[in-house]
């Protein structure tokens, strides 16, 4: 497992968090200067010099629990407050978005381009503040210094480490379901065809050499229509990353939903580090983060809601414990789906409704059929 993975996980999750907060701040008509303060404060805390230096030291990833706590603190680094249900949802969205980007990255090295997309957006959020922009620029430099020269093999190991962190997380996200990039079982749709990783060739040719070294080409069915990419994404400060992964997929008009909670709580299976170890390094970093955030709380506090309205938020908060308790039952249903075509037809109808509607009822439905 790569010991260089933690900064990438943290920065990309942080970037996704900023997209969602920005979208919700606007959707809830939070006054502009307050919204700006929130984004500024969070980016400033996230990219604190000492915290970044600690993060970039070679180390194993935090456990899922520790990572979640870090973002709990970070989300509350400013005057904005989130209740537990909204925080859950925020974290679910962030993690699934980055899981999607890592899973779909054409080649492991694209993870650095995804990171730079997030960095570009975060720099734009703090354009008004010279000090915070300076912090962002420092992190750009740290990223390039650490990662630009790594081999394909090292990036491959980093990608495998990230995918191991996201293993068994199958939360359904409405924006993904609507875009038809995620299935109802929470898995991403991988359609063969399209762009190839930079530097690779279109499948379908056998170059055969004889003893004298002369070659002849023999064609075969490559499996799908692929397109070779001729331009590599740029690592420059304002370069073209040439991938959409890691850019903002939300807009004020496009609210985001999750459903079918992660089964991660019930699937720990001894494979995770979560339960067994206190994670001393992560704890030290958390303490540092607490110091940084300190007691700088003002009277201007406001509450942000990740749901459409307060009622939905309360419902979500009251539903969760039940849903967790019944997650095992849900699993059994999913396996039956394969055997009974009638049942799957009914389930298909239920999910169709869930995909199209935006009322509170459909959320309940989707929780039940996940």
């Amino acid at each position, binding site marked *: *497992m*790569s*010991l260089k993975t933690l900064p990438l996980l943290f920065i990309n999750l942080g970037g996704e968090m900023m997209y969602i907060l920005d979208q919700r701040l606007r959707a809830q008509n939070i006054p502009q200067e307050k919204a700006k303060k929130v984004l500024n404060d969070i980016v400033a805390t996230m990219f604190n010099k000492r915290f970044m230096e600690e993060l970039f*030291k*070679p*180390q*194993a990833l935090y456990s899922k629990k520790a990572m979640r706590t870090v973002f709990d603190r970070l989300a509350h680094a400013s005057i904005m407050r989130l209740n537990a249900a909204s925080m859950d949802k925020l974290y679910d969205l962030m993690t699934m978005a980055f899981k999607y980007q890592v*899973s779909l990255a054409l*080649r*492991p090295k694209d993870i650095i381009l995804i990171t730079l997309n997030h960095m570009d957006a975060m720099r734009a959020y703090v354009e008004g503040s010279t000090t915070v922009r300076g912090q962002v620029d420092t992190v750009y430099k740290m990223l390039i210094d650490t990662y630009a020269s790594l*081999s*394909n*093999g*090292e990036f*491959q190991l980093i*990608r*495998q480490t990230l*995918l*191991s962190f996201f*293993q*068994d997380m*199958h939360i359904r996200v409405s924006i993904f379901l609507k875009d038809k990039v995620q*299935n109802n079982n929470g*898995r*991403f*749709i*991988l359609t*063969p*065809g399209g762009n*190839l*990783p930079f*530097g*690779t*060739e*279109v*499948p*379908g*040719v*056998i*170059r*055969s*050499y*004889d*003893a004298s070294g002369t070659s002849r080409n*023999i064609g*075969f*069915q*490559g*499996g*799908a229509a*692929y397109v070779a990419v001729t331009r590599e994404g740029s690592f420059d400060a304002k370069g073209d990353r040439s991938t959409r992964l890691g850019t903002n997929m939300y807009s004020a008009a496009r609210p985001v939903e999750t459903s079918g909670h992660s089964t991660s709580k019930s*699937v720990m*299976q*001894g*494979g*995770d*580090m979560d339960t*067994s*170890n206190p*994670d001393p390094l992560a704890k030290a970093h958390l303490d540092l983060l607490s110091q940084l955030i300190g007691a700088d709380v003002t009277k201007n506090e406001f509450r942000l809601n990740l749901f459409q309205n307060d009622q939905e938020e309360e419902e979500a908060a009251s539903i969760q414990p039940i849903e967790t308790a019944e997650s095992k039952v849900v699993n059994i249903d999913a396996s039956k789906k394969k055997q009974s075509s009638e049942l799957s037809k009914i389930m298909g109808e239920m999910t169709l409704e869930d995909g199209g509607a935006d009322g509170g009822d459909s959320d309940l439905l989707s929780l039940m059929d996940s």
Partner: protein
Amino acid sequence: MFRKDKPITLKGSTSFLCNNLSVYVMPEKKQLNYAVVHKSVVNIACATTDGTSVTGRQVACKEPSAAQGLPFVMQSKWVILPSRTVLVLTTHRGIQIYEPDGSAMIYWHALSDSMDKSNYGKGICGAGDNLICVGTESGAILVFEIPPKGTNVTLFDTVKGHKSPITDLAAEGEFMVSADDLGTIMVWRCSGSKFSQVSCVRGCGWPCNSVAVWKDVVVGGFSSGHIRVYNAASGTLGAEVTAHARSINAVHVACESGMLLTVSDDTFLKIWQLKTGAAPQIEHRYSECVTDLQLVGGNFVDKQGRAVCITGYDSNEIQFFIKG
């Protein structure tokens, strides 16, 4: 040419690791065993050859220094030597050798005890009558001598040559083949007690994730999606295939027929036929897209290549395809 058969369900999902499926056939017991890595656990499924019963087991990887948390398993593989079969696990800190059913640990070898520097083990194969080779992140290949019985395993030799992390090892007959992170492939001859380098093909920066050797043919599956086929003794490139649209994560040869399988991130399982010679050749035979699954492990179940099993990231199933 191949049809899908009933899958086997594992106790946990498959981790994203190259070569993440090992098969061990016990004809005398009419038993088929499959090992798949899930984070710090190896899930073993044990099936009867007629497919009527499947039992699951787990080998939890523990290391003496519990202070460092659970180790991540990088690979697990059964090594079948003439005198003995063992299950070998490599982690990001060491190598562990178990009895074939995973019940008891025979040997443990530390590779790194530092928190901020890893030295993982990756690439496992048997060689000669009683040797097991394991690749490491440092590029060295460790050779262990395995006694026919008991726990008296000894580090017998260290084979040096690779300058970057070993990705995979394979052996057949007198040849042992090693591949690394930069795509370099080396062929070694194992004569009794010494390994001597026979040929070397320099890589071009794309990792060679999986290697196989069959008679005098060496096959490399690269993360650029290419398959390359070489003559083992000379290192001569016989054929290069633009085979997959993403990284190839595993290759495997059916030793009695010379059939080759490759699996990839691009969701495809592909089957090929190898031909031996001074410039060995390859022909495409079959392609199957496994819906929405990034394939990380693949093996022929039998020596003829009549049945194929595969694993994919985040899935807890081993899927089967039968020639028909």
